[in-house]
């Protein structure tokens, strides 16, 4: 066995000092070590987007990253967004616009959309669709997701005033 490596990593605002095997993927560190199972893993090759998390505020595929690579970084998973009784505006928009059915792809989408809206507070449909290209949803046909992103942008703009 190779030597384990110490990592210092902040996940959803909580600092963790762990030692990890180099071959441990970030998604497995989050799900199995930290028991944050909101991050979903489907394709494992970076195509589907379900495992997307925020690394220092930017969306990345947690299945395409070793946990050791995230040493010194801050990660946000879907558990950081809202709670069942106090949904994040993006979660509320997905709920109200039925931007999900089975929900498997939703955690990754919520994080990509949250980061996207921070950079694009008033996005065009083309910008939204370009961002959605990084996420596969087999249920919705994307139309409701598009509506949800628009609704989230509007509600966040309204609450920022």
């Amino acid at each position, binding site marked *: 066995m190779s030597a384990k490596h110490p990592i210092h990593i902040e996940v959803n605002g909580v600092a963790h000092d762990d030692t990890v095997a*180099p*071959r441990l993927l970030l998604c497995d560190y989050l799900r199995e070590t930290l028991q944050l199972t909101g991050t979903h893993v489907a394709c494992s090759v*970076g195509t589907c*987007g379900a495992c997307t998390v925020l690394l220092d505020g*930017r969306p990345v595929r947690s299945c*395409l990253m*070793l946990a050791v*690579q995230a040493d010194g970084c801050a990660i946000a998973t879907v558990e950081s967004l809202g709670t069942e009784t106090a949904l994040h505006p993006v979660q509320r928009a997905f709920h109200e616009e039925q931007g999900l059915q089975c929900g498997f792809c939703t955690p990754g989408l919520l994080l990509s959309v949250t980061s996207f809206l921070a950079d694009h507070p008033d996005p065009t449909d083309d910008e939204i669709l370009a961002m*959605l290209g990084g996420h596969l949803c087999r249920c919705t046909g994307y139309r409701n997701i598009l509506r949800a992103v628009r609704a989230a942008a509007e509600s966040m703009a309204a609450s920022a005033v």
Partner: protein
Amino acid sequence: MKPVDFEYAAPRTVDETLALLARWGGQASILAGGQSLVPLLVARAVRPRCVIDISRVAELDAIDEVDGGVRIGAAVRQATCESSPLVQRVCPLLVAAIGWVASPPVRNLGTVVGSIAQRNAISQIPTVAVALGARVRIAAADGSRRTVPAESFVDANSPATLRSDELVLDCWFPGLPAGTAWGFYEVQRRAAHYALVGAAVTYARGPSGNATAVRVAASGLAARPIRLTGVEAAVDGRAPTPLLFSAAAQRASDDPVLDPIDDVHATAAYRRAVAPTIVERAFLAAAS
């Protein structure tokens, strides 16, 4: 699957990186962004004994304006390049092509140089590197440095190919002089998926307004991105009109250098048939 066990090293300098490569004697893999390497590790298609992560080598994480072009270090992320005012100004074709690479989350980790080092036949960044005549700078553990044209570097049969004790330091992309037309276009089965065929074109305008210094490179039409010199010759010296682009692009399907990829994503016959359309659209993007 999950990767097999391996050692991990995160050097801070180029010298440390080269010493590690020498020590592991061909049994190490360089990880920059990992967007190609990690899936290969997961599939166990590669089983290095050590993964050397160069993302913390500060001297490789730089974009510099050099000799009228941009030099992009081996640790520079694609997203960083995409949003760099320097790259946008000096080499906008590269920025446009990066916009076609996978999806934003992949570009947030993936590197420009790593895409070239992978020598993937369908990748956008190597196609731009071939079109522009980019140059790849390589360091070896014995202290030697060499610079090779990207066009040779991406050819697996070329002696320019990387040795196991070597590290790609950076890639220099020539700048596009003011007034140069540039365009990139490709066809994918769906958004953010692999390119089937892609094309990068640039041309300047002579005193009469005619196209000069025409360069065309395409992906998907051979085992590496290739120049389409027949198309270039058909445009060079003529008035750059949509009619000319359409006629010249026909040569993209019968160039003798073509040996299109044939795989699950598209047949060789499809790639050959669609090539003129893709090249024409890259020219139209350049003209607009």
